[in-house]
């Protein structure tokens, strides 16, 4: 292991914050500036990934009497790369968004430090190897996210943002209680030590249930998803993109990691989580199908898509090694594909709404003629969400189907099929509106080219990931299933 790796990792983790503060002082006016300033970070992570074969990188930070443990394995490094790419894209998009939509709005400058803070928080969550560090990351992430949601400053944005804050605090409270129980019972916060000593007794179960409750709330998993759609309704597009793509996923990540460490054999509870996921897939799909405004379609689709991730729990719990391996790979592939596609979709939807000046589906008539690129981007992103080939969503679905058939848990295959049909229903309902030729409107605002290009690249990345999935998955397999 090379000595340069640890400092470089921390550079990649922490650098976004000073960059964000710099941007507060001197906001960027061109997308190029953002790419130049932060474009090196994914490269650092790529280099770290290329060394992943040498085993996980780990260590601890001493803060007074406390020592905080961290660990960078292939999964964490891949998620870090994903985070950096999505955040970079949304930062670039935000520059164009500001120029096109909010010229002269001073509150925009505050977006940058919050984005930087969010990047640091997410990075910390991926590498954290103890409950305290995870807590720090989770809180920082929640506060930055709420701050970003409040940025528009409109009454409804503030109402929704404060509601989000309330939910996040309740979630944190549950989390803290769970942590306290675990610490009291087993005397350690470090994950690997905890996994070694903790027995799946009643204390562990209650502690884990509290942790899970808090995390499910933060991850907007059905039936605790009520806060998600309203906050997206009034948030800025780049904020929605980051939130839908990454923030809710971070809570899911913590949940599945803790679950695998503490209660790997709890089949009944895992099935309960899987059923919640199934309900989320169906309910989110139905709500997205019935939604009237474009942004609500995209937001509800997040609720549904998060449900797919939850199906990993029953397929991992007490499963044979090959099934567990398939479910494990499928989950992360689905997460990555969805993150890229959802960010692209929020941006494309934002472009459509900005250009037409309207947010209802029915107002999209004629867009296929006037805004073909944004619509195409929306369509390409939707391919991943529907899980049609050759996207990451498809490859992930293939693995998940294979896992569910191989383990004989046919129920999840049925959920996948229904979810796909529902996704297709809401996606094509939207596309169908755009194809209407009667009474097409003619006043469309032009967009900076970068605002079209950024989501297109993200959507294409989600497609391409389906074809080159073997590269990240082979890295993931080296780490094995926890």
């Amino acid at each position: 292991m090379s000595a340069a790796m640890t400092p470089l990792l921390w550079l990649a983790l922490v650098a976004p914050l000073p960059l964000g503060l710099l941007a507060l002082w001197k906001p960027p006016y061109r997308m190029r500036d953002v790419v130049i300033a932060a474009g090196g970070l994914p490269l650092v992570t790529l280099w770290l990934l290329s060394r992943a074969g040498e085993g996980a990188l780990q260590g601890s930070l001493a803060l007074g009497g406390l020592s905080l443990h961290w660990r960078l394995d292939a999964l964490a490094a891949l998620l870090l790369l994903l985070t950096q790419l999505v955040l970079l894209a949304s930062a670039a998009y935000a520059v164009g968004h500001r120029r096109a939509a909010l010229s002269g709005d001073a509150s925009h400058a505050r977006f940058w430090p919050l984005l930087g803070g969010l990047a640091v928080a997410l990075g910390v969550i991926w590498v954290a190897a103890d409950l305290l560090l995870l807590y720090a990351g989770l809180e920082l992430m929640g506060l930055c996210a709420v701050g970003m949601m409040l940025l528009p400053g409109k009454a409804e944005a503030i109402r929704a943002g404060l509601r989000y804050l309330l939910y996040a605090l309740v979630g944190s409270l549950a989390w803290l209680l769970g942590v306290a129980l675990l610490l009291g019972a087993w005397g350690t916060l470090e994950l690997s030590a905890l996994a070694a000593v903790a027995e799946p007794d009643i204390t562990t179960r209650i502690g884990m249930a509290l942790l899970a409750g808090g995390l499910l709330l933060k991850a907007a998993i059905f039936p605790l998803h009520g806060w998600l759609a309203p906050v997206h309704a009034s948030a800025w597009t780049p904020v929605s993109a980051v939130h839908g793509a990454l923030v809710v996923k971070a809570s899911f990540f913590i949940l599945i990691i803790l679950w695998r460490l503490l209660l790997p054999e709890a089949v009944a509870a895992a099935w309960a989580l899987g059923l919640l996921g199934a309900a989320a897939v169906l309910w989110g799909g139905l709500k997205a199908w019935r939604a009237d405004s474009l942004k609500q379609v995209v937001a509800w689709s997040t609720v549904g898509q998060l449900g797919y991730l939850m199906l990993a729990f029953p397929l991992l719990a007490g499963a044979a090694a090959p099934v567990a391996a398939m479910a494990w790979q499928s989950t992360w592939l689905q997460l990555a594909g969805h993150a890229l596609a959802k960010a692209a979709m929020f941006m494309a939807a934002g472009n459509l709404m900005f250009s037409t000046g309207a947010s209802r589906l029915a107002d999209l008539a004629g867009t296929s003629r006037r805004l073909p690129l944004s619509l195409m981007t929306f369509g390409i992103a939707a391919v991943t969400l529907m899980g049609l080939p050759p996207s990451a969503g498809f490859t992930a679905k293939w693995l998940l189907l294979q896992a569910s058939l191989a383990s004989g848990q046919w129920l999840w295959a049925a959920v996948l099929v229904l979810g796909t049909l529902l996704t297709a229903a809401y996606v094509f309902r939207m596309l169908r509106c755009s194809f209407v030729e009667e009474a097409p409107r003619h006043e469309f605002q032009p967009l900076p080219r970068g605002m079209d290009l950024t989501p297109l690249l993200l959507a294409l990345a989600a497609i391409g990931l389906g074809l080159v999935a073997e590269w990240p998955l082979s890295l993931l397999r080296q780490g094995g299933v926890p």
Partner: protein
Amino acid sequence: MSAAFFPVATLATSLLAAAIIFLLPEGAFRARTGLNLAAAVLKIGLVAWMVRGLSQGHSYAVEFPVLEGLAFVLRADALGIMFAGLSSLLWLFTTVYAIGYLEDSPNRRRFFGFFSLCVASTLGISLAGNLFTFLIFYELLTLSTYPLVAHRGNPKALAAATLYLRFTLTAGLVLMLGMVALHALAGDIRFGQREVLAEFGAEQRGTLIAIFWVLIAGLGVKAALVPLHGWLPRAMVAPAPVSALLHAVAVVKAGAFGIVRLVYDVYGAELSQALGLLTGLAIVASVTILYASLRALAQVELKRRLAFSTVSQVSYIVLGIGLFGPLGTIAALSHLLHQGMMKITLFFCAGNYAEELGIHRIDELDGAGRRMPLTSLAFSVGALGMIGLPPLVGFLSKWYLGTGAVQAGMPWVIAVLVASSLLNAAYFLPILYRLWFCPGPDHGVGEWPAERHLGRFETSSWLLVPALATALFSVLAGLFAGLPYSPLEWATRVANLEYLP
């Protein structure tokens, strides 16, 4: 190097053409036309090169892993290249036709972009080397045809497109389920590795049979097998080149080609016969042939009659597959090509009548042979071919089907063939009678619904030439069926590969 180059380059021609067309501005008519035609011609050249190479014993393949134990495989084999040849040849004509048909209409960039994507998917389907790769392009085909069916943007087109999606997306999922189940059972089966499933013991027979029918249900929607055919007649609202494409080259053919692959290259004809799957296929196909012919008889709109005729004709392919033995296989494979040439001619002609004279209903065709002799000649060639009149190609298909039925020991199939030929005659001959023998507006009786004078000849040459060319091809393919590289000869070559070890 060239082994990987040709399949990738052939696929890339259409994909790149699609990408560039989407980037060109709507008004760039010349650039788009030039690009379309150049790509189509280049693709024919590449496919022809591979045909020559294959017959000299070269092989063309490229693959890379997508998941552990699952690869993306493009491979040109005799069967695949046959379908690729058909699609790239007919594509050239359809492109020419579409350029003429859509002159001055809106959204041409979108149309031609998705049109090229559609070609790319069809080509991918023909070169796919395993079920996984097949599925990728099969679904891509669904997605790229949706905007074409919805093209006109009126409520009727949108409703038809939605119906089309409901059928095809559901079928795609069913197909995927079947493929995953097969993959879980037997791993990644490359097309042609018939021994993999043949080695399974008797205890897996039930599973194999169940998976087979699941896969057929998935493929049968695109192949328009009764009762899964409902989308096809409704999709007739699409522009004529799209109908031509749906019916002759891309969508229904993709379904039929999938069935061919499944039976011959995954299960193998012998295993399929041993499991009793072929008889089932023959029965499904016979029901489809007779039912759709009866429905065709009842249609008063020209395009709808042609649509039901497609449903019935495509099932000849499935029927041929259902007849165990080389003759049945030859019938199936050659009909895959023959039906494409005849049906595309018929749709081009129907489009010409609609564009030039505003004719949509059959009873409006009276005397059109005098006003549009060349189009009507081409239509007659296509229709007589469908009925099976020698020496046209349709006769060859039916001849091989009949002899194949005898070889397979299923003489009842001959009764189906006779009945369906009579029905074909019953729904096509009245049209020919009206075209040539009934007095119409050009004889001073009544007037055309909406006459336009689109070109120097009876209609625009962009519309006329493709129809004549495909008609000519279907005559030539019948006359010179014995020569090397004719559809029949190539089908025989593939059939020999299947049955001779």
